[in-house]
C-alpha cells in the first residue's frame, strides 16, 4: 500500500515523496544523490521489513530527480 510521506518544507524547496512501503532499502538512491541527502532510516522498518530510504536534509535538495530515476521500484516522486 502506498503511504506517501510529504516532506514538509518551504514552498521553494523540491518535493521528494516516498511510497514508503514499496521501498526495499537497497540504497541505490542514497548512492546516486549528488548532494548526499538520502539515507536509510534505521530506526524503523516498513511493511516489507526493510529500512526505508528518507531525505534527511531537504534544504540541500536540488530537485535533480536522480534518486527517483535510479529507484528500481518507482518509490520516489520528485517535484520542484
Amino acid at each position, binding site marked *: 500500500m502506498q503511504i506517501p510521506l510529504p516532506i514538509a518544507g518551504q514552498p521553494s524547496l523540491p518535493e521528494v515523496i516516498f511510497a514508503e512501503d514499496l521501498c526495499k532499502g537497497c540504497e541505490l538512491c542514497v548512492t546516486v544523490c549528488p548532494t548526499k541527502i538520502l539515507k536509510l532510516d534505521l530506526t524503523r522498518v516498513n511493511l516489507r521489513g526493510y529500512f526505508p530510504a528518507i531525505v534527511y536534509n531537504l534544504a540541500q535538495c536540488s530537485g535533480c530527480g536522480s534518486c527517483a*530515476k*535510479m529507484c528500481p521500484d518507482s518509490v520516489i516522486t520528485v*517535484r520542484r
Partner: protein
Amino acid sequence: MKTVYEKSTGLTDVPLHYCPGCTHGIIHKLVAESLVELDVLGRAIAVAPVGCAVFAYDYFNCDAQEAAHGRAPAVATGIKRVHPDAIVFTYQGDGDLASIGMAEIVHAAMRGENITVVFVNNAIYGMTGGQMAPTTLVGQSTTTSPLGRNRLGQGAPLRICEMLATIEATAYVARVSVHTVPRLTAAKRAIKKAFQLQIERKGFSLVEVLSTCPTNWGLSPVEALHWVERTMIPIFPLGVYKDLEGGA
C-alpha cells in the same frame, strides 16, 4: 510545482518482486517510459521470458504473452507477423537469450523481424539460484562453476552485441548499462531509439543492458553497481555496434 519524476503509466500497480537493488526494476522503467513517451503503449505487446523477469507480463501495462524459455523471439515473430502494426518486444535474460534461445535470437535477427529485444545481461542465472551463464566472466564463481569459470571446458563469455551486429538485417544493436544515472539516461535513449526504429519498420533492434544480480554475486546492491563498472564493462564494452542510421 513541476513533476521531475514519477512512476510511469507504462507500469502496472503490481509491486515488483525483484531483489532489493536489482536493476531489472530500472530497466522495466526505461522500457515503460519509452513506450509511453513514443505514444505506443496501446499497441505494445510484451513477450516475457523464463527467468527472474518471468512475471514481466504482470508489470508492463500492455498486452503480453509468456514464452517458453528462450523462445521469446519466436513467439514475438508469431505475434508481429499477425499484427505488423503492434510494437512487439521481448525482455530476456542471459540464459533465455544466449543459452537455450540462441537459435531463436539469431534467426529472428537474420530474418530482420521488426521487433525490439531488451537483453538483460547480469552474467549469471538469477532465478534458478546463481548458476553459470553464457555471459559469466572467466574466473567468476557461480554455483555450477564453484572454482570460477574455467576457460578450459567452459569457454569464455559470449558477446551477443558483437555477434548479432554481423547479421545483415539488424537495424540497431547497442550495449548500455544502468549503474549510474548518466548511464541509465543513455540506456533509455538507446531503448527509445530501438522502439522508434520498430515504429519506422526499419528492422530488428536489440539493446543489451548490463545489469546487476546482488543476491547471486554475493554483493550489496551498491557494491554490485561498482562491479558492473569495474569488472563487466571491460569485458562487455558499452557502445553502439550496429546502427542503420549511422551515428549514436
